């Protein structure tokens, strides 16, 4: 007789959803190989396995370990788990539970051993999530919706690779505290309206505004800050991968700019110098200026 169980989580579940289950299992001494984490809608054999009971969210949440039974876990584990649990891989919760188990029962310093396969994997996931999060902070583009007698609302459409919306919403709240905004994504939308953060289910791109009057100014800036004499397309693509381009208002300029760069550079090189039009007496006279002070 084992106390094996299976746990049903949402496809986009993250650390907060996983945590009560993990705590329950850890306290009930259920070894990692006996916990079956399921986070998609495909029936797998464990659901029908008579040895395996479903652990419900109510059971998990109602379980409160007494003070004397608290299990303390290193803060670094929580930081790692918050990130790696956003990585959309079906095994993420199983791997993180296994690491938790090993940290508590086997090796308190396990996280520092970056060559351990579990730790290596979790670190890799966390890094990818960190990168996705960073790109979200960078590439979200708000579009203004104006109202007659109210403050405008700023709305952005973004397609993250992982389940990072909750993990990243505090950043947007703290940066854009004084304005109302929404970020819409395919799996979850976040809204900051009149000082309250709320989440609603995902939607599609047609729900977001298509353009903003400021975009012409932004494109003008992008066009003119580019130096055609220093074309380095690879460097650009390494930091701004093409998969993000379709939601960036400036991306329509990229191909034409690359095509015209060589000609623009040659034109500058070949152009004959002109004679100055401004009279040279309007130039700066340092001595006069120093004396006048």
């Amino acid at each position, binding site marked *: 007789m084992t106390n094996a169980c299976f746990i049903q989580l949402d496809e986009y579940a993250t650390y907060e959803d996983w945590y009560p289950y993990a705590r329950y299992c850890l306290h009930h001494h259920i070894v990692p190989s006996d916990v079956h984490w399921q986070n998609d809608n495909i029936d797998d054999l464990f659901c029908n396995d008579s040895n395996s009971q479903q652990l419900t969210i109510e059971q998990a949440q109602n379980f409160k370990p007494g003070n004397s039974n608290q299990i303390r876990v290193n803060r670094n584990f929580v930081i790692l788990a918050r990130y790696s649990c956003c990585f959309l891989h079906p095994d993420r919760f199983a791997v993180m539970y296994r690491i938790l188990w090993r940290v508590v029962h086997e090796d308190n310093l396990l996280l*520092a*051993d*970056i*060559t351990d396969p579990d730790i290596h994997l979790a670190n890799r996931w966390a890094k990818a999530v960190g990168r996705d999060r*960073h790109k979200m*902070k*960078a590439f979200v*583009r*708000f*579009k*203004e919706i104006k109202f007659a007698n109210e403050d405008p609302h*700023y709305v*952005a459409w973004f397609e993250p690779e992982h389940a990072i919306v909750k993990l990243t919403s505090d*950043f947007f*709240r*703290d*940066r*854009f*505290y*004084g304005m109302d905004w929404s970020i819409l994504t395919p799996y979850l939308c976040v809204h900051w309206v009149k000082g309250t953060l709320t989440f609603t289910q995902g939607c599609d791109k047609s729900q977001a505004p298509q353009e903003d009057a*400021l975009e*012409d*100014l*932004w494109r*003008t*800036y*992008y066009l*003119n*800050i*580019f*130096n*055609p*004499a*220093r*074309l*380095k*397309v*690879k*460097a*650009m693509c390494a*930091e*701004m991968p093409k998969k993000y381009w379709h939601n*960036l208002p*400036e991306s329509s300029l*990229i191909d034409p*700019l690359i095509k015209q*760069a060589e000609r623009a*550079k040659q034109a*500058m*090189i070949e*152009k004959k*110098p002109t004679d*100055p039009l*401004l009279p*040279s007496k*309007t*130039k*700066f006279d*340092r001595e006069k*200026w120093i004396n006048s002070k």
Partner: protein
Amino acid sequence: MEVIEKLSILADAAKYDASCASSGTQLRDSKGSSSIGSTTGMGICHSYAPDGRCISLLKILLTNLCIYDCVYCVNRHSSNVHRARFTTKEVVDLTISFYKRNYIEGLFLSSGIIQNPNYTMEQLVTVAKSLREDHGFRGYIHLKTIPDADESLIHQAGIYADRLSINIELPSTESLISLAPEKNVKSIRSSMGTLKSHIEESKEEQSSKKVSRITYVKKESKKALTKNAVRKTKRSEKLFAPAGQSTQMIVGADSSNDFKILTTSHQLYKSFGMRRVYYSAFSPIPDASKQLPLTEPPLLREHRIYQADWLMRFYGFQVSELVNTQTQPMLDLDIDPKLNWALRNRDIFPIDINRADREILLRVPGLGPRNVQRILQSRAFHRLSLEDLKRMRLSLKKIKPFISTADYHPASSLIDHENLKAKLVDPKQHQLTLF
């Protein structure tokens, strides 16, 4: 003139300043306020142009009119480029509108010199002041500092800005005299010294809690703040230019060699506590001067100088280990300066990954500070093998000739191999002028 037309002229005029950093300032956010803006440790690059440069700040000039006539500069007095001038309000509004759409981290404002240095500096300060006080803006501000402006103006600039910068422009005094006749090297250096002392004093004062309280709270909303928010603002008292100062040197507009450039940099870092020295390959500009015939910008040279700069700041290299006046005044363009050093100092290799100190590990081509840290951390658990290094995603091809591990002891003949350089240089690289 419409704002959009001004923007096209004044962004074009600003692009020769390489800096776009928005990092390393005090952490702050707009929590509990009715305004916007925050800063992060690393800064965020919101876009990239096809020149591979990050777009983090709205980088513009207030005006490209200029009474100075620096030969290398697109905005010099004698150039016939189109001229424009923003009002201070136009710059403030553009910054706020771009920021609200998450296009930028903040503003990098520079200007041609109009009327006189003090007047120009006042205009720049007005923009920063309005952003902070009228709009409670908490994003990043970088102001170009005019070295001839009065100290009181420079002081004000530092109150509102995160970073200040004065460009050294050219590596030698002689070059500055011949190419930038209105500038003055003494004045530049003395202003850099002023910035340094203000920056340091402000930090010291804050640590002794004597700093006068400067906050970015919108004037009219002070009363409306909750207790929490007031506490928050008090905690984040604004330092004088908390992101420090930086400068820029043009590469290839004069005949200075890399030894001269790196020696000058080293001195700038040491004397003025520069956070960064930027290098800008002299690049073709519209309506260039007859005095400086235009060619391709020396991008590869610029890249090697940046690598050398990094080695000096983060790897413990001395200028003299990378270049010297007699035998190697220029960095090798074929291979990076660290590999070049290693090939000239083969006797210290191979280095034992499981025993060597941090300073020695940093000398291994292909190992950076982060990987050295990871090696030190994980070798406390067990002796490292090649497989472990591979899992750390290190390029074995690059580091193998220079190291030994638990399971790998290279024959000494490998490091002494005459063709080692050829083996390590990517053959494609010879064809590349850009990468």
